């Protein structure tokens, strides 16, 4: 299968998944949405294996890496600032929705930082640490 055919399959799959998820939302059926997403992912995984052309190369990986770093650098400070604002403006009422939301967001930020640190250390070891000396 060529890259062009793969792109057509990807668009069609996204189209059908979007339709079925919107049907499941309107009929209040979460199982249909879940099943649709899983089947869609499996289908795309199978289609991807049939593609003979190169889909991902070093340039795509560089772009993805830069995009991921930008996303991390932007999302973490913004979510952290929102969570701090929500927590400190609702300190008097710890059972309020906003306080709970602030706490949840702060844990999400901590989780993101932890995943980033793990991934960073993994790739640092893979591509050679700065600490190594002859």
């Amino acid at each position, binding site marked *: 299968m060529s*890259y062009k055919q793969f792109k057509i399959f990807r668009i069609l799959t996204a189209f059908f998944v979007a339709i079925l998820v919107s049907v499941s939302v309107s009929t209040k059926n979460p199982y249909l949405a879940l099943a649709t997403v899983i089947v869609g992912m499996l289908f795309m995984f199978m289609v991807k294996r049939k593609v003979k*052309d*190169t*889909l991902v*190369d*070093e*340039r*795509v990986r*560089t772009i993805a890496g830069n995009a991921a770093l930008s996303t991390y650098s932007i999302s973490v400070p913004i979510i952290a600032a929102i969570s701090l604002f929500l927590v400190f403006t609702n300190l008097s009422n710890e059972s309020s929705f906003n306080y709970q939301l602030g706490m949840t967001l702060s844990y999400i930020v901590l989780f993101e930082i932890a995943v980033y640190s793990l991934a960073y250390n993994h790739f640092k070891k893979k591509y050679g640490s700065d600490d190594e000396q002859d």
Partner: protein
Amino acid sequence: MNKIKIYRAEKNLTQEELALKVGVTRQTIIAIEKEKYVPSLELAFKIARFFDKKIEEVFQYY
């Protein structure tokens, strides 16, 4: 700067064919030719070997 376009024309190859030979996407070859993307050493060697040239004959850096 690089001479990929020249050597590709000599061999009468399309960007897609060269991409297939060196195992990258067509967009990567376009980006290298337009000097918007600097290839890794591995890819630079692959391209040079494909054209039977030395790496410094294909890629120059000033």
